[in-house]
């Protein structure tokens, strides 16, 4: 199946690579089908591209690469809905917002994306954690460009 993407150009995707978000994503409730596109091997970044809206893609970040103690309890209802199990553990991603500089990007800690990569379903959940910010700066202000180049935070 061919997908048009403003960011990636034309993509040729197998039906089995499509990720279904049965509830859509808040702000885009009609968008239910996406493709998850890795950034580069070993990169903590990836992209979620809508299959129907060429302009709609999200930059995703693996939280555990950056945030030391990021944790939450997934509700049974969500685990069931996403058919998660010991064999199908959840994949967790944060949606990133880049306004100007990439190094100033923020991530939404309060509403991670939870995906079942085997069953190809996902949803954005809102955590019961008021201490988690919707706009958490991913790279601390004090991190120098040299540190970034070396790959440490």
């Amino acid at each position, binding site marked *: 199946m061919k997908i048009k993407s403003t960011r990636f150009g034309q993509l040729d995707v197998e039906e089995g690579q499509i990720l279904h978000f049965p509830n859509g994503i808040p702000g885009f409730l009609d968008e239910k089908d996406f493709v998850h596109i890795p*950034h580069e091997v070993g990169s*903590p970044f990836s992209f979620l591209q809508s299959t129907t809206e060429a302009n709609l*893609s999200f930059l995703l970040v693996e939280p555990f690469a950056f945030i030391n103690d990021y944790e939450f309890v997934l509700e049974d209802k969500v685990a069931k809905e996403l058919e998660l199990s010991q064999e199908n553990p959840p994949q967790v991603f944060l949606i990133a917002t*880049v306004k100007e500089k*990439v190094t100033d990007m923020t991530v939404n800690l*309060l509403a991670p994306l939870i995906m079942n990569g085997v069953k190809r379903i996902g949803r954005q959940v809102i955590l019961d954690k008021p201490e988690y910010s919707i706009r958490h700066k991913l790279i601390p202000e004090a991190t120098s460009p040299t540190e970034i180049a070396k790959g*440490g935070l």
Partner: protein
Amino acid sequence: MLALTRKVGERIVIGDDIVVTIVGVKGDSIRITVDAPKEVKIYRGEIYDAIAAENKQAAAPSDLSELDNLKGLRLKK
């Protein structure tokens, strides 16, 4: 949509297991308690709106040409 008036101390029962009680009114703030099963998600309306708004921001076109410089970035353990 149902609209109704309640007094302080009065309750609204939704279905079999959700009870909303008005506990107090102070100026334009109303304090309520919600008794609901654990699996029922309850959040303030503005949190959902804030997440939808942030998703829209996140989807706005941005220049990611420098993302490659960050691909090796990791928290130091």
